[in-house]
């Protein structure tokens, strides 16, 4: 069977794949990284979003062999070795940006990409537009939008995480 080699969360991984094997199947079934979720069959929900070479893409709509040789970051790869959360994860916690948590891994990965690609500022409308590919059934999005806005200055070294208003 064909081999695909990836660097996942900093570690090299070489796996056997079929032509039809999706990136999300490699992550969940072969590497045991079940933080990346599958929420739909139609490429619309975004629960499966991971970073491939720094870009937030849908791992359910990517064949493993298409990204052979790439560097992949999943939700498991965000926190520091000592358990310190990534600023976006911390913001989601502080702002109560999740309820059931199913959409959260994809939301966080998309949110990080959105913040990174907007170094000059990020408006509420840009955040809402930027989340078009991530569906949440629980939160109504408001707290997710607030968390992303709060993470922006932290990620760009322009401030600390403001406490959420009670």
């Amino acid at each position, binding site marked *: 069977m064909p081999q695909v080699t990836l660097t996942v969360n900093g570690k090299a991984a070489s796996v056997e794949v*079929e032509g039809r094997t999706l990136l999300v199947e490699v992550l969940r079934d072969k590497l045991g990284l079940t933080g990346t979720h599958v929420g739909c069959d139609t490429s619309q929900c975004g629960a499966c979003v991971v970073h491939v070479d720094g870009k*937030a893409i849908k791992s359910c709509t990517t064949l493993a062999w298409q990204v052979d040789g790439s560097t992949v970051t999943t939700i498991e790869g965000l926190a520091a070795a000592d358990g310190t959360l990534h600023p976006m994860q911390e913001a989601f916690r502080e702002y109560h940006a999740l309820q059931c948590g199913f959409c959260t891994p994809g939301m966080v990965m998309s949110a990080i990409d959105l913040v990174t690609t907007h170094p000059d500022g990020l408006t509420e409308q840009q955040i809402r537009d930027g989340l078009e590919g991530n569906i949440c059934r629980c939160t109504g999005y408001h707290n997710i939008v607030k968390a992303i806005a709060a993470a922006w200055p932290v990620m760009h070294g322009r401030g600390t995480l403001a406490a959420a208003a009670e």
Partner: protein
Amino acid sequence: MYDFAFSKPTNVADAVKLLGDPDAKPISGGQTLIPVLKQRLNKPTTVVDLTKLGLSGITVTATTVTIGATTTHVTVATSADVAKAIPALAHLASHIGDRAVRYRGTIGGSLANNDPTADYPSAALALGATIKTDRRSIAADDYFQGMFTTALEPGEIITAVEFPIPEKAAYVKFPNPASRYAMVGVFVAKGPKGVRVAVTGAGQNGVFRHTAFETALAANFSAGALAGLATPADGMNADIHGSAAYRAHLVDVIAKRAVAAAG
């Protein structure tokens, strides 16, 4: 998904040879093909990757913008050159699907697929683009042949799309709130090929030119020139998202907005 073999050729000639097999299918971004394969609506024996053929990139001259087939939507959306030469095209690309789709989806894949609700076909038709393939050049007017149908022969690969730079142009889309595909999208252009208006999302046969609007706008390029010109509901798409009459009305409204946006 049924299983298949895959191949990653590194030049167009090899890809064309591989696609000579009638059961082989090209893949670019996979943002349409993979969902189709998941639904088992297609059963290729070999999937041929087109992204290693060197067909990605944007070239701008004084009169044209040429976009390589495997150029992603995000590349077009964020290109300063495209934003300067044909801002409407960059705007269109920045509104395709969502960010994750735009990172992988390509202009060649979009035009090859010719989804009746896709965005790029309207730009190609309104701007009078030329579709370049491994074997010929096809004028947009001859290229789109009904929904999911194009002039491409089996195994023919789109290599690039050449857009003449218009004097002015605008694209306005009324997106389906769930999928972001166009319920109705109107691309208006005034350029070397005259005034051209292309409508996507609305027609049963896919993208079409709105000749009544073109005639009115050629005489007077203003939203007011379209007042009183009601698009007939005949031939409009009807589904759970909207009736034919609703879409016909949207065409009128969105076209006026597009003309106003073009200025």
